[in-house]
């Protein structure tokens, strides 16, 4: 059995589902950030797979994936910074306690 597009898409879907589950259910802010990274990488898998199998002549998908990695690296940096700042204030990184902005 050759590894085809559908296998990659399935892998992406599984990764995305795992990430989504983590983002929704984890109480630790660090864990949620990691889950977000997982979902971004699921998208990257899809992009690279689509690019490789559907348009092999151009590298749009691969370039996009690299772009996303750069952006999510920055994003993680910012997110962890925020988490550290909040931890210094409240000695806690539990998302359930971060509800200061509610109406």
């Amino acid at each position: 059995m050759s590894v085809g597009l559908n296998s990659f898409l399935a892998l992406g879907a599984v990764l995305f589902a795992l990430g989504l589950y983590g983002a929704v259910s984890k109480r630790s802010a660090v864990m949620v950030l990691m889950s977000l990274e997982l979902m971004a990488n699921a998208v990257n898998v899809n992009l690279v797979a689509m690019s490789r199998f559907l348009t092999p002549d151009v590298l749009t998908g691969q370039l996009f994936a690299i772009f996303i990695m750069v952006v999510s690296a920055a994003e993680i940096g910012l997110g962890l910074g925020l988490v550290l700042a909040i931890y210094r204030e409240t000695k806690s990184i539990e998302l359930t306690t971060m509800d200061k902005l509610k109406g």
Partner: protein
Amino acid sequence: MGWVAAIPLLPAGAFALMAPMSRKARNAARWLSVAAMAIALVMSLFVFAETWGAAKEAKHAKLAAASAEAVPGESSGELAEVYRGTFTFGRIGETELNFGILVDPVSAAMLVVITLVGTCVQVYSIGYMHKDERIGWYFAVLSLFSAAMLALVLADNFLMLYLAWEVMGLCSYLLIGFWHEQEAPRRASQKAFLTTRVGDVGFALGLAVMYKASGSFDFDVVLGEAAAWAPGVALACALLLLFGAMGKSAQVPLHVWLPDAMAGPTPASALIHAATMVAAGVYLVARALPIFEAAPAALSVTMFVGATTALVGGLLGAVQHDVKKVLAYSTISQLGYMFVALGAGGFVPGMFHLVTHAFFKSLLFLGAGVIIHACHTQDMREMGGLAKRMPWTTATFTAGSLALAGIFPLSGFWSKDEILTALWNGQHYVTFFVALLAAFVTAFYVARLWFRVFTGYAHHPKAKEGHAEMLAPMVLLAAITAVIGFSSPAFAGFLGHKGHWPAIGMAVGSSAVALSGLAVGWWVYGRPGAKLTTDSLKHRFGYLYDMLAQKLYFDHAYDAVFVRPFVNGSDALSRFDLRVVDGAVNGVAAAWNRLCDWSWAFDVRAIDGAVNGLGTSVRKAGAQLRKLQVGRVQVYQKYVLGAVVLLMLMIAMKGA
């Protein structure tokens, strides 16, 4: 001679200036009124001089024409017209309404009389009224009155005459009720106004008849056409005008207001209720005489009214105790004399008596004013013995009294003589003897008044003579009274008639009657040891005396026939007003109130309820929605997840 218009406009201007002033300024400005009157007097004298010359020329021209045509020249009664000017102030259809000025001998003579007496009265008033706090208003109204009277005699049409007539009525009302803090002047002013108004209705109707008949109010047109009118029309017009004149000139049975009018200030009585306004009725009849001549019955009625009034006024004057009321009844009686003269067709005697009466009666009133000031009462039973204390007043008052009684050579003798002559020549023998009887009564009450006031027991031994500004006009009027009689033939000539000196027989006869009246008066009131009570009279004449003392029951009759039913009717109408009309109005108001209550309730409950309800429900919905925003990121993620799932389900079901 356009400046003639300034004669009435001067006092009118004085009134217009004084009326809007403050009381203090107006009191200070009383000189304005006196000055306006004095200037009007000077101008009137100029007008008179000019008219006198013109009348003489006209007479010569007429005589020349008469001799050329060899017609026996009996006087035609034409008046020489000197000046005429018109000012149109309105238009009804084809008819122009004019303020016209007509200067002829009659109006020129009236101008002099009015301004002369008016100036005398105003100068006198400065002394008489000097303590009154509303003296300015008094002078202002006096000015307005003078303006109206002057406009009346200058009018060249009946409509303008009527307008001036009514303004005079207003001034008369204001001056009679001048001391309106008191009850009597207030009532008297209303009585005077309403009674003369009864006559004025006749006048207005007469104007209507006149206009219907000739389509104009102008003296020229109306009087020229009057002879050609249907007899009924002329009679109706003449009688209606006569009725108006009777109201103004206080003729029986409309005389009741004049004695009461004595409640006003005495100088005002002298000017208005003796010399000028009450003579306006005589002037009206004299002006409209051609209409009366077109209907001989009207002349007879005029004569009858005049004779009745002359006698009744004299008799009533003989039992009054109030000095001013004696003079008021005397005025009524003398005005009756003038009507008698006019009724006999005696234009000149009527006018001449008007002139002489104006002077001697205003003199008597001014004298009465001084006496009232000195004695602080109007009741002559509380006077007496004033001759020693007040020589000037006594002398001038005596001159006026003798003129009124008709004693040679004072003015009353001449004019009364002319009237009697006119009656005799016109073969009105009954009226002639009534007039003689009235002359006798006149002499009697003159003697009564004089002896009770100036002789006998002095009730006021410290009575003081009047001030100079009060005495000077009286002296002037007394001088005029003394000499004006001699102008009798000239006056007749001035009015375009043939003048004559009195016949000896008539003069002796009337003098005898007057002297016998004075003698009887002296015997009853003046002789030493006369009993000055009314008891003996009451005892001797009983019912007759009561009848006179009750003023022949005129006031009682009017009270019973007109006043009380009217008051009762007014009361009934007032009750109707209170109950039915006010009830209806109040009912509507109450219904409206109720409606408003309902509207208020609807407003509060339905409209405010809807608005408030909307607000409340929005707020509640907002509170519910607020619960969705919990502030926890993961909850929002779940919302998004749910939404995406729903979206995907939708896409799956619809097949993209």
